């Protein structure tokens, strides 16, 4: 692939990445949303976070199969406990990393 073709492809990839990030912000920040939609959006963050994490904790990636034995899952327990007890993001990330690292040594 020539340098020019590569850059054109990157511009196209940039556009299809950027537009979904930009358009809702521009279109929705200037109007009052209907009540049901605002309530729906309130639930979106918790749903997205949970949906992002679930496969990391409960599934092998290649091939995709369900499992309850991943180090990621066991390390999640002290991490969540720390998040609820301390309410500190920095502390929780460090506890998570150390738990994961420690468990990897013994599992």
């Amino acid at each position, binding site marked *: 692939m020539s340098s020019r*073709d*590569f*850059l054109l*492809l990157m511009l*196209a*990839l*940039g556009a*299809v*990445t*950027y537009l*979904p*990030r*930009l*358009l*809702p*912000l*521009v*279109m929705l*920040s200037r109007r009052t*949303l209907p009540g*049901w939609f605002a*309530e*729906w*959006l309130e*639930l*979106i*963050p*918790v*749903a*997205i*976070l*949970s*949906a*992002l*994490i*679930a*496969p*990391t904790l*409960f*599934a092998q990636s290649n091939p*995709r*199969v*369900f499992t309850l034995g991943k180090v990621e899952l066991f*390390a*999640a327990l002290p*991490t*969540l406990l720390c*998040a609820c007890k301390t*309410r500190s*993001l*920095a502390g*929780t*990330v460090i506890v*998570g*990393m150390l*738990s*994961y*690292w*420690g468990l*990897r040594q013994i599992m």
Partner: protein
Amino acid sequence: MPNPIAIKETGLVRAGLAAAWPICLGYFPIGLSLGVLAQKGGLAPWQMAAMSLLVFAGGAQFIAVAMLATGASALAIVSTVFMVNLRHLLMSSALAVHFPGVSRRFLALFAYGLTDESFAVNLTRFNQGGWNRFSALTLNHAANATWVVSTVAGVYLGQLVPPGAAGVDYALTGMFLCLLAFQISSPIFTATALLAAVLSLLTYLWLPGNAYVLVASSLAATAGLALKRAWRKREKTS
């Protein structure tokens, strides 16, 4: 005499940088490994830099690098990346309430740095209150700078870095877990989170690709809303 406005601005930038560190820590090893893959796939350092600057999306870039290496068509790469990034529509919508009447120029700069990670941290901060949009913008661009540097570094020296040092692979998972715990503020949120996890797993196992986040989170939020309305109705009638 120090300029009070300048001091305030430095404070906002500093707050953004302070909030960005778990993201930067998590991006670094991922960026390095993307750089290694890209180098194996035949990308030059300038091409890696151009991609990380123009696209700035972790998952999508891994897929694009893999598809480039196998000689996939441009159309196939663009449409796959588009599908993978559709979940940002939801994140951008959820953030919009925190930018009422903000200029298009600011939004254009901010949207560039909207990733799963920056979304999660910024939204949590906005909900906690007192989070300034300039701090949010700083956070986005600090994450982007780390991403560009680490992906290009990966092309040069990725193989030299031992994988999994000090559990750094777990930084982003740990951050997401913590932010999830912070979001749970009522039984409706717990129910929505549990449902999203189950739906995400099912779609992850049964559908190829990355549609699982978009499908599971929109279905779970819809079910959560229905549940909330049903409970409200029952409280009114009883």
